[in-house]
């Protein structure tokens, strides 16, 4: 069937010149540009679109926009599939493929419908009362429950599309492009303010797109066209259609999700970002988000064909679709009268309008009767009969208090029931902004009351449903917002519109039941009026308890059509007034936002961009394996041929110990410290004394937190009387820089010290080994290199391979070593020169793994490996570096606390495994008693463990309770079910006297 059986030949805002083909549940249909999936389905006479969450009842299209609770579809296929898309918001494109969710094998015949028959067993919260036996069987029950729950299917492939994020500032942000929003944007724009107008629909216009009425004496739609044209011509106004203001955060910061390509067939999306999230800081916000029509709660109100009156009207007027052949309209307010007229005009036979109010609006009723539509005053639809489509409505008269029925039942055949239960202002964004709501009896809805941020609600969003008043409010708010930003005089003329008399709605929250049917409140989550009454009886009478216990309002629509009904029925059940029951907090987002859009460009290589050294391309060329250290990529080891990690590291270590190794040490943090009080700062943040350090010399330092725990370490050189060069750990660079600034600015603001991070200014190649000095001698003509002129822990300026360099005689490997610092731009040249000149010594690049082995042989600790934030200098055997005579340094008082002085603190030791070939697991625990059953008392753990090519055996460093007094003991070390034995030793295994590194 390709004929659009329910499409009128004229009217609507669709482009009949083009026909779009699409499929739903595998069947081919046609629609037109301007259609949503929902309007196109209805144009083809399709109402049945899904099955409900719990009872798998047949469900149809209820709304025409964001409020839709039912018509959720799986859109697209393969990598482009998207679950739970509201058919009312999916713009039709050629080739669109959609399918129902949550039914199997199909939407007409669904096996899950058996739940409907057993419905009596599944009242609200039934799962809290059962599935408890036998104990531990929950996982089995859960398996079935999980499969029954859920709606659509998650994609199974990576998302091939990309997303954008952008920031914007404006004087006035207008959320919602209906009449009030347009009036606000026009007024603010005319005043000259920077304006952003965002609307969730493909077309700006809101209710004007579907409704009638006149503005400034012309059809509203003509005014709309002029208004959008005028806005488009304003340089400072940005109009964003397809853009949902989804979140209102602190300090007038709002999120907008803009759909850039979803309305295009996949083939036309190539090269475009799919969606974009705007993050807008707005001077003022005008909330013109409209209102959402409420359904009425009567038996069978979920049958396909029962829909919101506004939706039926929108389908008729905007999409030229007849939502059925014969309709019944039921309302508790005035607005549905126009719906009845519009339906009738569109060719739907309107059998009857039932108005819950005994007193009906006379003028409107007259117009209906002129159109041949019966108005049944004081009556309601009390039951809708049918299966996969409504077939008739049962009409009864309501008693005076709305809780009883009177008179005979009338069964009116129909295939559509258009329902209006009144209007709820869309206060979601207002509530998110922190504003407080107030219950308005006159409209029977919550309206904005007290603002917390610089915003104002206008039009239907604040309960002003009359078109003229909404336009006036919008214009006033727009002008005032622009004025607050310094534009215009704060006044604006509002367009004139025809005002209407409004008779207050008659809230009948639960239309009395004539029989035994289910009356749904939350139609997506299958929550009935009876469920709410049950929850109230069981004491779940706080609104949040109700929501959580019954799941009402917790679906993908977040209760847009159901929250107020649920609240009112709860109030009735507990005998309290609605305002006393309260309302729930609305949380972002207003409608669901794609994860990928929130991530924006921060995916793949841009997730957390890697930091690379100047020599990185050389390492890559050499086939290096890299290690992630913080954000840096550091060479881990340099395998030759098919070498394993173990083989490569052994070779690299041997090279350093016997000839010459070279390491890229560029990632170490570097801070330039200048000023008359520079040495004082070092005295404060390091544990040792710095005043006496001579220019030209370096010193190792340990930094503590105020609690006395080791925080960072490194070598600092004195470049001049008031000038130091500090190095930090790779991962700690930013932390240390911030730490120093914090102490300077907040504790010692009178000190004159200036810090500059120079980490990436310098590239550093460290050459180490017995041949290091020989190589230096060849490349470095202007530095005296012998151990007396250039001793260990000194630095010199000079040139290396013709490149201006600052050379440090420091060593982390235990060998004679030179750390050559050159400007980053020269790093690669230096490296290549060293490699070339060092070839005769078989210069061997070594990575972090070999570096770790070499330093561990020397017993040098790595902060973050031997320490974990609970380790003091004393624990590391480094009391020697703690200045006893210094009056103060950061951490001094912390170290004096009782717990830091316990003799049984964990202390750094060496371990020699009994089996010299066994490399202990790093992280293995040292047991107090190898024979004890769990929980086994533990005394420490292995912090570093390696194979030493130099020692031809394994060794380790560990933290061990009272370890310094236990050298010589043998302790059990355990990991993964294996206990090994190791001898406790001093934590130094190579060149204890330090002759090599000094030599």
């Amino acid at each position, binding site marked *: 069937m390709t004929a659009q059986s329910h499409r009128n030949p004229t009217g609507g805002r669709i482009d009949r010149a083009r026909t779009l083909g699409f499929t739903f549940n595998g069947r081919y249909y046609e629609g037109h540009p301007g259609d949503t999936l929902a309007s196109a389905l209805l144009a083809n006479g399709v109402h049945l679109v899904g099955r409900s969450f719990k009872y798998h009842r047949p469900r149809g299209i209820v709304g025409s926009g964001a409020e839709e609770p039912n018509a959720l579809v799986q859109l697209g296929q393969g990598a482009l599939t998207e679950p739970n898309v509201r058919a009312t918001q999916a713009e039709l494109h050629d080739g669109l493929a959609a399918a129902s969710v949550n039914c199997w094998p199909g939407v007409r015949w669904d096996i899950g419908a058996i739940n409907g028959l057993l419905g009596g067993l599944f009242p609200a919260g039934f799962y809290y009362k059962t599935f408890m036996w036998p104990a531990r069987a929950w996982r089995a029950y859960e398996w079935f429950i999980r499969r029954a729950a859920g709606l659509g299917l998650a994609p199974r492939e990576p998302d091939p599309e990309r997303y954008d994020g952008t920031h914007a500032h404006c004087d006035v942000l207008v959320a919602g492009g209906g009449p009030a929003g347009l009036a606000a944007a026009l007024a603010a724009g005319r005043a000259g303010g920077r304006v952003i107008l965002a609307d969730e629909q493909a077309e700006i216009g809101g209710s004007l797109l579907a409704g009638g009425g006149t503005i400034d004496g012309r059809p509203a739609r003509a005014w709309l066209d002029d208004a959008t044209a005028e806005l488009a011509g304003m340089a400072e106004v940005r109009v964003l259609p397809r853009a949902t203001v989804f979140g209102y*955060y*602190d*300090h*007038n*910061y709002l999120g907008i999700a803009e759909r850039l390509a979803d309305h295009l067939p996949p083939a036309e999306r190539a090269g475009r970002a799919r969606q974009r999230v705007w*993050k807008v*800081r707005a001077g003022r916000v005008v909330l013109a988000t409209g209102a959402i029509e409420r359904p009425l709660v009567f038996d069978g109100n979920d049958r396909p064909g029962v829909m919101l009156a506004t939706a039926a009207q929108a389908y008729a007027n905007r999409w030229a679709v007849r939502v059925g052949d014969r309709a019944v309209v039921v309302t508790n307010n005035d607005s549905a009268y126009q719906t009845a007229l519009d339906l009738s005009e569109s060719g739907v036979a309107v059998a009857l309008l039932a108005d819950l109010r005994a007193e009906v609006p006379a003028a409107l009723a007259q117009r209906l009767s002129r159109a041949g539509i019966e108005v049944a005053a004081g009556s309601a639809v009390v039951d809708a009969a049918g299966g996969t489509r409504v077939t008739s409505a049962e009409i009864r008269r309501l008693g005076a208090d709305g809780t009883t029925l009177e008179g005979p039942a009338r069964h009116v055949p129909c295939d559509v029931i258009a329902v209006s239960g009144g209007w709820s202002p869309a206060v979601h964004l207002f509530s998110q902004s*922190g504003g407080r709501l107030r219950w308005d009896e006159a409209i029977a809805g919550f309206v904005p009351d007290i603002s*917390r941020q610089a915003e104002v609600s206008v039009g239907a969003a604040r309960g002003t449903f009359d078109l003229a008043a909404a336009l006036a409010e919008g214009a006033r708010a727009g002008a005032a917002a622009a004025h607050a930003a310094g534009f215009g005089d704060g006044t604006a003329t509002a367009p004139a519109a025809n005002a209407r008399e409004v008779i207050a709605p008659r809230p009948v929250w639960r239309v009395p039941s004539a029989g035994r049917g289910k009356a749904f409140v939350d139609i997506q989550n299958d929550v009935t009026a009876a469920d709410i009454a049950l929850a109230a009886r069981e004491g779940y009478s706080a609104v949040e308890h109700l929501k959580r216990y019954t799941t009402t309002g917790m679906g993908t629509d977040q209760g847009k059509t159901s929250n107020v009904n649920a609240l009112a029925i709860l109030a009735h059940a507990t005998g309290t007034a609605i305002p006393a029951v309260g309302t729930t907090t609305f949380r972002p987002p207003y409608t669901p936002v794609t994860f990928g859009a929130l991530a924006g460009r921060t995916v793949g290589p841009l997730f957390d961009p890697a930091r690379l050294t100047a020599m990185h391309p050389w390492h890559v060329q050499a086939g290096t394996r890299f290690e992630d250290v913080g954000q840096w990529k550091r060479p881990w080891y340099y395998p030759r041929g098919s070498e394993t990690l173990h083989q490569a590291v052994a070779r690299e270590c041997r090279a350093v110990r016997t000839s010459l190794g070279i390491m890229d040490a560029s990632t170490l943090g570097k801070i330039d410290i200048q000023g008359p009080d520079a040495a004082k700062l070092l005295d404060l943040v390091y544990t040792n004394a710095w005043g006496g350090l001579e220019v030209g010399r370096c010193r190792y330092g340990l930094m503590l937190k*105020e*609690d006395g725990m080791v925080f960072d370490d490194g070598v600092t050189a004195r470049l001049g009387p008031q000038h130091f060069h500090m190095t930090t750990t790779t991962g700690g660079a930013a932390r240390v820089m*911030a730490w120093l*600034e*914090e102490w300077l*600015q*907040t*504790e010692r*603001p009178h000190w004159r010290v200036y810090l500059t991070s120079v980490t990436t200014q310098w590239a550093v190649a460290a050459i180490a080994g017995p041949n290091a000095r020989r190589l230096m001698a060849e490349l470095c003509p202007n530095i005296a290199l012998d151990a007396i002129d250039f001793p260990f822990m000194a630095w010199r300026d000079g040139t290396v391979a013709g490149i201006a360099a600052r050379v440090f005689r420091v060593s982390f490997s235990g060998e004679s070593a030179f750390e050559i610092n050159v400007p980053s731009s020269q790093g690669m040249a230096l490296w290549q020169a060293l490699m070339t000149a060092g070839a005769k010594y078989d210069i061997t690049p070594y990575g972090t793994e070999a570096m770790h082995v070499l330093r561990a042989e020397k017993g040098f600790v790595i902060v973050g490996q031997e320490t974990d934030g609970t380790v003091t200098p004393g624990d590391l055997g480094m009391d020697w570096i703690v200045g006893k005579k210094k*009056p*103060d340094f950061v951490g*001094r*008082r*912390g170290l*004096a*606390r*009782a717990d830091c002085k316990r003799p049984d603190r964990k202390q750094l030791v060496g371990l020699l495994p009994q089996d010299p070939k066994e490399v202990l697991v790093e992280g293995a625990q040292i047991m107090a008693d190898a024979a004890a059953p769990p929980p086994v008392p533990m005394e420490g753990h292995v912090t570093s463990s390696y194979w030493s090519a130099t020692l031809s055996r394994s060794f380790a460093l560990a933290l061990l309770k009272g370890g310094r007094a236990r050298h010589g003991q043998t302790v059990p070390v355990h990991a993964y079910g294996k206990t090994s034995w190791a001898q406790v030793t001093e934590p130094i295994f190579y060149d204890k006297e330090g002759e090599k590194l000094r030599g």
Partner: protein
Amino acid sequence: MLLIACPFCGPRDETEFRCGGESHIARPGPAETVSDERWGDYLFNRANPKGVHLERWLHGHGCGQWFNVARDTVSHRVLAVYRMGDPPPKDLTP
């Protein structure tokens, strides 16, 4: 995303800053005279008020300066911004 008026740079997004917690905590000393309890209080105990909080912020991705902010911990409104070393506005002192 709070909007914080750096006293040196003007209003900037929160992500340019780092929050450094409670302000006006004096470091006790000299060390020998400070009890463990007093030191523990300095290190760890915080006023953590529900309402006006005097706190330090660092404009790390900007001028690099620390400064003080008086902010309401419920509404998140910034009530005052003042430089390090300046006393808090009198009407905001708890």
